[in-house]
């Protein structure tokens, strides 16, 4: 589904900032880091927006901000055009029915003492409601689990089956937007492909909108309709077309580091040197400058803004890769 210029996005993040402070005490000042710095994102109904980056880039913090699980230090979260940034507790409950999340680790996100039935009924119990009859069976059908699993406990299931339960639980209230925080990162590649196929199927049949958080650019390019690349808390590139060639040197490097399952294409791998700098001591200027193969003098002193390139694509770079 293509978003028209004036359509209200179902989920909008506007200038989100989140800082964390660690350590410190009575006499010592804590150190603070900016996990998410000025991130804006518009998610239209039916979109699959992929947020990609390495660990520490702020993608999971962004997911938790979008879910309103943590408060932003600055900026706004809008759902269907309504500002929900100031809502807390009971006022957030209507939002919970429309905005749900699937967590990374299906081993720790399911209560080991709940049967699958109890687990799938919990979202209703949490809001003091009763599930419509047959809902558990319908949910199990939807995620491709046999109905006989309703009485089973999580330890009786494989990782892939558990993640199906995680997805079913997120679907309990028929939400509009589902935030997927690395839902396949702890699974085997064969099971990852199964789960992605299931998510694609649900997107097609239930008209869901996804915000998909991942570290795997290859997977994001396959699965998503739009891609946001993050590095050290900032968006460095927005790709309106997932198949487009990368413009930001970091996106290009991510792509160059992904292994292609073809032994005849070995020469193309160009591993990126160095590692992500500590978010507590961000370099001035562009955060990617210390590792960037296209770095120029001004990159080390001033920070490039996210600017439009072609169509709805944007890049934050003084010296982007030629299209």
């Amino acid at each position, binding site marked *: 589904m293509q978003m028209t210029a004036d359509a209200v996005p179902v989920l909008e993040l506007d200038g989100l900032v989140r800082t964390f402070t660690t350590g410190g005490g009575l006499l010592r000042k804590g150190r603070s880091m900016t996990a998410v710095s000025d991130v804006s994102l518009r998610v239209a109904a039916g979109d699959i927006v992929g947020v990609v980056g*390495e*660990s520490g880039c702020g993608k999971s913090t962004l997911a938790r901000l979008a879910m309103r699980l943590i408060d932003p230090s600055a900026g706004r979260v809008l759902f269907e055009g309504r500002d929900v940034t100031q809502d807390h507790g009971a006022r957030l409950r209507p939002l919970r029915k429309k905005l749900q999340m699937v967590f990374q680790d299906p081993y720790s996100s399911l209560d080991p003492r709940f049967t699958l039935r109890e687990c799938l009924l919990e979202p209703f119990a949490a809001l003091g409601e009763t599930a419509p009859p047959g809902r558990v069976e319908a949910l199990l059908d939807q995620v491709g689990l046999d109905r006989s699993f309703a009485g089973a406990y999580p330890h009786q299931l*494989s*990782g*892939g*089956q558990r993640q199906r339960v995680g997805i079913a639980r997120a679907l309990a209230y028929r939400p509009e937007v589902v935030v997927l925080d690395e839902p396949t990162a702890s699974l*085997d*590649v*064969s*099971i*990852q*492909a*199964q*789960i*992605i*196929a299931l998510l*694609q199927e649900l997107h097609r049949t239930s008209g869901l909108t996804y915000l998909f958080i991942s*570290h*795997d*650019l*290859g*997977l994001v*390019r*396959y*699965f998503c309709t739009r891609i946001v690349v993050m590095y050290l808390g900032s968006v460095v590139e927005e790709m309106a077309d997932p*198949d487009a060639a990368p413009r930001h040197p970091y996106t290009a*490097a*991510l792509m*160059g*580091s*992904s*292994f*292609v*399952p*073809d*032994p*005849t294409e*070995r020469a193309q*791998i160009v*591993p*990126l*040197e160095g*590692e*992500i700098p500590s978010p507590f001591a961000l370099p001035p200027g562009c955060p990617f400058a210390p590792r960037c193969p296209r770095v120029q003098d001004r990159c080390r002193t001033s920070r490039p803004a996210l600017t439009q390139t072609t169509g709805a694509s944007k890049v934050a770079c003084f010296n982007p890769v030629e299209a």
Partner: protein
Amino acid sequence: MLLDVRDLSLRIGTVGLLDGLSFSVDRGEVLGLVGESGSGKSLTALALTGLAARMGATITAGSVVFDGTDLVGLKESAYRRLRGKRIGFITQNPMSALDALVTIGDQVDQVSRLHLGLSKRAARAHTVEILSRLRIPEAEVVARAYPHNLSGGMKQRVVIAMALAADPDLIIADEPTTALDVTVQAQIVMMLADLVRKRDLGLILITHDMSVVAQICDKVCVLYAGRVAESGPVRQIFAAPRHPYTEALIGCIPRDGMAPGSLRGIPGTVAAVSQYGADCCRFAPRCCRADALCSTQQPLPVATGTGGMLACHHPVDTPVTEAADADDR
């Protein structure tokens, strides 16, 4: 041949976990041992290093010939002289492989002091040299640091340094990059492969990711539920996979230009060990080419023309209709 494993079978209690595994690695060669969780990859690594017995496992058949000596039945004291010295081991999780209370330098020093008998000073010089060869900046400083001072990628380099410290002939790496970021994974894997070729070592790389195999391995051995499904040279296997499982594993990785919905994965999961059948193909319940024959008769591994093996009644390059005929006989 540096390491030649023939018909290796292993069981714990009455359950057979590995069933007739055969593969080999030579110096300067990288062998990929691939399969999903539960296929027996890590257990194979433990069997090769003589650690499986500590888990109550018994090797029931086969041989593990390392540089001319069969390691099956070797005494623990003899194994101790091999492990760490001639066979280096790199574990999956660098966070738990290092002692949090000992400095990086002391941990790497221990290996060369024990196995090479180096003095304290010589061991440290050796450690710093290895660390710098693994492109760790300011190796002297890092040697004085504790594990918590280092990033995941750095820690994994230290674990690799420990595996290299006694100049081993063979390295077994059990999913060495699963816990790392993509850009760091590429660095580490390329470095490891480069090192093995330059120093003429053998490397067994255990992974579930066929794209890693495609990029750095020379040979691949695909395991399924404790048996070899298919093995052979990497280029051959990727150009024309013959076992339906190999083909499906390669198809699990998204590639540029793939149509939406074309990534299907492999239905179902690897059977639990307690449900392993003896006289059948264990992949049959998940296989699109399976017929009655596959559930009643084990496909025995047959040598292929390219030095590999294949255990399948209905390989990918045979028409499915023929398979249906076979089932009438």
